[in-house]
């Protein structure tokens, strides 16, 4: 049963990956753009999922970190530097800022990180907007080039989509590894039972901080991909509402589930597109859909699946118990 399930899961995963590679081949430019956007937002949401789902901390600044990454990429690549260098700068910068923000906040009290990040979000937006010499202010930076990867230009929509998808794959693998590493197990231990984790000798504050900083760095990665995707950035998309959107993605997908961000980003990016035929009503319907989903399953989409599987398992277990019991009873 379990082995069977495992094969099924691998087969399903391979099918989804194959579909992500093959199906978009004859998509128009618009479809590819939306899918690329999905991949980028998934990376940002995965970072937040690490902070929220695994370390149990609310960050209201993930959008600001995406902004920092996007500006790093925009400024550096328009100066002729390669995107990979910008990516490195984005990661280091976001990690460091995350650490500096988280350190005092977590020292004071466990859940105050949310408020500090809320303030940081506004501060970051103001810096993006006001420091003209660096960010070109409200006019934004245009003409952001798309990178060459292994000698292939990604100017066309399809190669750039594969570039985003490839980046998503690399981030996913790294995340998969991280969660299974001793660090990742410490993160989970933190979430499940902080007191016990502490008594086991885990430095909870340090691990929480680490999770937040890594999560923020992933926001930076997403930003460094967002800039060449839109090829123009200004400060407005990186205000608080992006942070709130990302938080919504994580919760709606199912926080603490590995695949939660994938589904959450899909809902946030694709659902409004599917609803656009309703014209002026589409955002209203989107809001209602999110509310209904959360009322039905506050643990998100994967929460529904989880509940269903758990029910099946209990049923199977009780059936097994019943069989054993009847055997015992019929036994002479």
């Amino acid at each position: 049963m379990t082995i069977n399930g495992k094969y099924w899961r691998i087969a399903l995963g391979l099918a989804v990956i194959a579909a992500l590679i093959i199906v978009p081949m004859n998509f128009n430019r618009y479809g590819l753009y939306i899918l690329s956007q999905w991949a980028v937002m998934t990376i940002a949401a995965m970072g937040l999922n690490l902070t929220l789902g695994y370390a149990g901390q609310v960050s209201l600044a993930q959008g600001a970190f995406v902004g920092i990454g996007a500006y790093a990429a925009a400024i550096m690549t328009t100066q002729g530097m390669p995107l990979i260098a910008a990516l490195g700068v984005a990661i280091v910068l976001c990690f460091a800022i995350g650490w500096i923000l988280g350190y005092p906040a977590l020292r004071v009290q466990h859940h105050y990180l949310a408020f500090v990040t809320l303030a940081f979000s506004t501060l970051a937006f103001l810096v993006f907007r006001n420091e003209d010499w660096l960010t070109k202010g409200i006019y934004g930076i245009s003409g952001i080039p798309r990178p060459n990867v292994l000698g292939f230009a990604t100017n066309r929509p399809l190669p750039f989509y594969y570039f985003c998808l490839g980046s998503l794959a690399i981030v996913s693998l790294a995340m998969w590894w991280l969660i299974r590493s001793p660090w990742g197990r410490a993160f989970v231990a933190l979430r499940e039972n902080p007191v016990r984790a502490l008594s086991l000798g885990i430095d909870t504050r340090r691990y929480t901080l680490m999770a937040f900083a890594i999560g923020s760095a992933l926001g930076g990665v997403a930003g460094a991909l967002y800039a060449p995707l839109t090829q123009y950035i200004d400060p407005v998309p990186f205000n608080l509402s992006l942070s709130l959107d990302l938080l919504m993605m994580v919760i709606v997908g199912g926080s603490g589930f590995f695949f939660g961000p994938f589904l959450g980003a899909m809902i946030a990016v694709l659902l409004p597109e599917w609803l656009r035929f309703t014209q002026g009503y589409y955002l209203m319907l989107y809001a209602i859909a999110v509310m209904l989903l959360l009322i039905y399953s506050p643990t998100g989409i994967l929460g529904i699946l989880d509940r269903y599987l758990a029910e099946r398992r209990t049923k199977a277990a009780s059936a097994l118990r019943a069989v054993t019991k009847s055997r015992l009873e019929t036994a002479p």
Partner: protein
Amino acid sequence: MKSGFFAGLLLATVSAAAAFAQGAPIKLADVAELSGGGATVGNNWKNGIDLAIEEINAKGGVLGRKLEVTHADSQSNPGVARAQVQKALDNEPYVLLGPGYSGSVKVTSPLAAEAGIAQIMGGEAAELTQGGNKFLFRTSFGQQSSMPKVAKYINDELKAKSVAVVWVNNDFGKGGRDVITKEFAKYNIKVAADLSTEAGQADFAADVSKIKAAAPDAVFIYLNEEESARILKELKRQAVTVPLMGETTLVGQKVVELAGDAANGARGHVGLTTDAPVDLVKAFREKFVKKYNYVPDHNGLKGYLAIYMIKATTDKMGKVDSKAFADTLHGLTIKAANEPGILMDVTFDEKGDIDRQGFLVEIVEGKQVVKQVLPKLN
């Protein structure tokens, strides 16, 4: 005989196809700020477009074909605007309409140019038409044409030597502020205070007290309607009596309605206004109010004009030809006498910039009074 029959059939099919093409609607695509921070801009623009299309279709359309428009929401976000424009272009529209925010125009105009489709937009930032894009057209004065007129008036008529500049910190306000500051430098006018404000700001006490402290000869106000009304009230409360000068928004009917008698004495240059002393504009305003139950701002006019620009250009070509559209509109003069929908005579230059008459107005006892008509240049 047989071949004759086939030739006849072929001819019939071809002419049927031609007749069908004749009757098929002309597809237009609009991408605008229907939600988010620019929703007022985008919805006015959209309503103007819908009104013009309704009128044109009621009179039989353009060259006998109806106009059909799809509206897409950019959520006031350049990234979304880009996606929606991409989607619109994938459907091969005749002409692309919008967006209204200059940032969104900047990110979408290369796409339209690449597809070879003309884009008629609402952005006013100076730089938009200066990059050599052959497919981009304005519906209103760019800041590079309106601000020099304002600066000239402040220098010649107000004789001001120092001016406080209040602007809203978005691409519209910042753009205007940057252009007018440059113009002031030409006249050796000093910027006594340079005050950035936030969109949606409610409390202007601090800004006005800074203006008072700077003691300028005049104040230049470049804000959206609601904020204009609030700062006018605050200027009155703190008894600032120097001349107040603005561009389009400051002296709009909406501001007068919201600010009451605090608006008296405010002056401004106006390119497009529903208060223009032009009969066709007054008629437009009545039609708009009748359909939508509110008085549009200049964005409503821009959307309306965009459609009549398309009609006039297409009539001129005598055919619906997406590729030749931009070439035809460059250098075209549209006279209101021939095409009443264009409201005022207008000429488009090679960059897609606009030449049209403008007005210098002052609010006197709650009414816009035109002090000076600035004629069309050519």
